[in-house]
């Protein structure tokens, strides 16, 4: 559904952030973009979103059909909620910007907040929500417009470990239920290994694709404890060590 072809990005200050990136992302994949800080993974995500333009190469959607407003759900590292708006109003925002009337989408908003486990906090403002709950609202806001792809830029990096695990588990089951295509930027090997069906490892300065691995960890409650999980973590660790020496 998304073809990245020989994409490079050089910033105005001359830094080459990405060099010759090519990858094809299929519908329904959960792709983790994994790499150390400064490897350009967030820049690649912003290029996919159309928030930056590539210096070279192209990004093609569904054989040429460009995504419109609401086709891309983006979740930032911070929840970036409007502090003066309730959870429901924050989730309504993307629809509001496209002229949808609140009364017409009230059911959809409630349902989307229920999907992320916030059915009891629909009228709560961000101030009264925990960090994990704010991130859940942020995910609901990205999902509410039923986007073609969900782009997530280290969304759980600022959360405590317990909350992060819960959100990872919930995001995975959300992905399995919805079949949504997800591109997830992270610098955590464990997070990438647990979440993704495919892991693209990037090397830094300039950012290149070092390896593209498909995960074969069996589904189930004990995903983090399976031998395949440990093996994949070790394999990724070795790859990263070679791709990005100190």
């Amino acid at each position, binding site marked *: 559904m998304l073809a990245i072809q020989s994409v490079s990005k050089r910033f105005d200050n001359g830094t080459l952030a990405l060099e010759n990136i090519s990858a094809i992302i299929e519908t329904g994949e959960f792709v983790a973009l994994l790499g150390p800080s400064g490897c350009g993974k967030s820049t690649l995500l912003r290029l996919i979103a159309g928030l930056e333009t590539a210096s070279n190469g192209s990004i093609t959607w569904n054989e040429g059909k460009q995504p419109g407003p609401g086709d891309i759900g983006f979740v930032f590292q911070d929840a970036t909620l409007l502090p003066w708006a309730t959870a429901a109003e924050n989730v309504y*925002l993307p629809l509001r910007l496209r002229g949808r009337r609140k009364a017409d989408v009230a059911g959809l908003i409630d349902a989307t907040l229920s999907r992320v486990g916030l059915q009891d906090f629909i009228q709560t*403002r961000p101030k009264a929500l925990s960090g994990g709950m704010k991130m859940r609202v942020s995910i609901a806001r990205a999902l509410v417009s039923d986007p073609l792809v969900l782009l997530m830029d280290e969304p759980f990096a600022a959360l405590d470990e317990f909350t992060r695990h819960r959100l990872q588990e919930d995001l995975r089951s959300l992905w399995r239920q919805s079949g949504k295509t997800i591109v997830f930027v992270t610098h955590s090997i464990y997070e990438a290994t647990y979440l993704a069906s495919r892991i693209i490892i990037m090397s830094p300065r300039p950012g290149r694709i070092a390896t593209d691995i498909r995960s074969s960890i069996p589904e189930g409650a004990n995903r983090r404890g399976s031998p395949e999980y440990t093996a994949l973590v070790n394999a990724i660790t070795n790859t990263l060590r070679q791709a990005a020496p100190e």
Partner: protein
Amino acid sequence: MKTRIELAAPFVFGAMALGLWQFAVWAMGVPPYVLPGPIAIAAAYAGDYAVLNPALVSTLTVTFTALAAATAIGVALAVAMAASSLFRAAVQPWAVMLQVTPVVAIAPLIIIWVNQPFVALVVCAAIVAFFPILSNTAAGLAAVPSDLLDLFKLNGATRWQTLFLLQLPSALPSFLTGLRISGTLALVGAVVAEFVAGSGGFASGLAYRIIEASYRLEIPRMFAALFLLGISGIVIYAALGLLSAALLRRRDGA
């Protein structure tokens, strides 16, 4: 939240200072035409409130009209500056210049240019007051998190939607900080303008009463007028503080 002692502190401190003042004036035998004590000032107010209170109302009318004008102009300029970097580049240095120009220097001209004395006073006070609103609101509009601007862009927001649904609400705390500073500046501006205008101006504000009292060597009456100004300043500052806290509490929830 302030403790009870903190709430009482300014009153206790003020009472102590007044007591010391009264004692010093009495002990050293300072005549009231040099420095009246608080009791003499209170007596002067009790005798003259029929003149001083309307004068205060007149000055406050100028103050609040100027504050409203300063708010409208300051916010409008800040929005225009946020919308266009060319406009910002063109206007910002001139706004600073207007800010550092002493209003005492230009007030006589404004009083000549503007026929209506009331409008002339409002213009002077608004010139003094508008800059904190402009600079704080502009800073608030510019400080919107870039992620939120990206979010609006991804969802195809128009410039107006971005302004009204994101930038203006985000800038509210900064605007309110500017408004609080401008509130007291508007009072200063109104008084300075009245001073310059003198009897040729509106001839009814507190500044005019202060000048009049000093000409007649009615020093306690002059101090009574000064006290009214000082208390008005405190009340305006505190009221705008309460307004700001209430608005932000309403905006962000308890």
